[in-house]
């Protein structure tokens, strides 16, 4: 049975007093609720939703002192989820609209692309074969067309497309593998 607002509130108040078991139950429940919340408002991209749920649970944890015991717990926690969702949109996190997995989003030339992201990208590129690296740099960073890149490397355009697709997929896997820890 779904816990009610009153149940959640009781769990939260116990948590504020240091009851770890109550807190664990509350976090489990909030995990599913937040998953549903973000799934209804975003893509079906599991990794993206997972990140947001984790971010929100972290914020609930770090800011639990701002919960007023007289307040509705659901109102409080969903306001935090909403804050995180807005943050996510502001960072331009609509990755689901970008084809070829998350990795492609990293190449979107965007003023906000931080030095950090570039650094991560370089590290990830190092894991690919040199020919694929060069191709990705040409097309995604220097913005050459597939045909131009093909001509430059003496490859067919189809071969370029296939290599690019594989390279991006691999990058995606790289970021997902590591992304869980972030």
């Amino acid at each position, binding site marked *: 049975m779904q816990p009610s607002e009153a149940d959640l509130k009781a769990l939260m108040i116990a*948590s*504020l*007093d*240091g009851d*770890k078991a109550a*807190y*664990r139950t509350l*976090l*489990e429940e909030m*995990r599913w609720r937040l998953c549903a919340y973000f799934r209804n408002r975003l893509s079906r991209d599991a990794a993206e939703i*997972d990140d947001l*749920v*984790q971010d929100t*649970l*972290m*914020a609930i*944890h770090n*800011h*639990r*002192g*701002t*919960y*007023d*015991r007289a*307040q*509705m717990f659901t*109102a*409080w*926690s*969903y*306001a*935090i989820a*909403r*804050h995180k969702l807005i*943050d996510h949109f502001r960072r331009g996190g609509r990755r689901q609209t970008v084809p070829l997995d998350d990795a492609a989003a990293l190449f979107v030339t965007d003023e906000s692309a931080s030095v950090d992201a570039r650094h991560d990208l370089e590290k990830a590129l190092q894991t690919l074969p040199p020919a694929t690296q060069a191709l990705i740099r040409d097309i995604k960073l220097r913005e050459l067309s597939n045909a131009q890149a093909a001509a430059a490397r003496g490859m067919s355009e189809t071969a370029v497309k296939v290599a690019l697709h594989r390279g991006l997929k691999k990058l995606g896997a790289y970021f997902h593998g590591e992304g*869980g820890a972030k």
Partner: protein
Amino acid sequence: MSDEFLRSLSADLAPVSRWTVARRLALGMSGGVIVSAVLMLVLLGPRPDMDQSMTTAMFWMKLAYALAFAVIAGFAAERLARPAASARGRIEWLAAPILLVIVIAALRLAAAAPDSRALMLMGESARVCPWRILFFALPPLAGLVWAMRGLAPTRLREAGAAIGLAAGGAGAFVYALACTESTAPFLAIWYTLGMAASAALGWALGPLVLRWR
């Protein structure tokens, strides 16, 4: 996200005081007020007639008016530092000091000789008073921004306005110790304006500086 993550959060759980929010705001506020007070002593000095003025009602009324703003807006900020909480039921209390001071000012003006009314309204420092209040509000505002960023406001403009107004009250309190004006109409207009300017500043800055992670 792993069970490991949930486990680490619950392992990290420590009891939290009910006063977390109030304590942090008070810390930011008092740090700022100390800076303002030092700036006031260095730049303007306390009013030279402090001893005599302390026996007048007007001296205490100025302090009380400023203090009322700092406290009421501070209580509003204490609510607005919490996700989804509203400051309704707290900020309304401001109506009391404002009405009180307006009524007193109106009575004094009505009782005064017509040719002395302009002086009652403008004093000698009307042009600088709101600016000085805004200036002395800046350190407490900075302290409150620091405090708020560590809390979790979700209505950033309202939270910004609340801390702006609280800082305005604190700035006015500090400035009142240097200011030699002693009429209720002056207080009603220029002090209120200075504190409102600080609230407006907070309102404008809220969405820019109060985002938390």
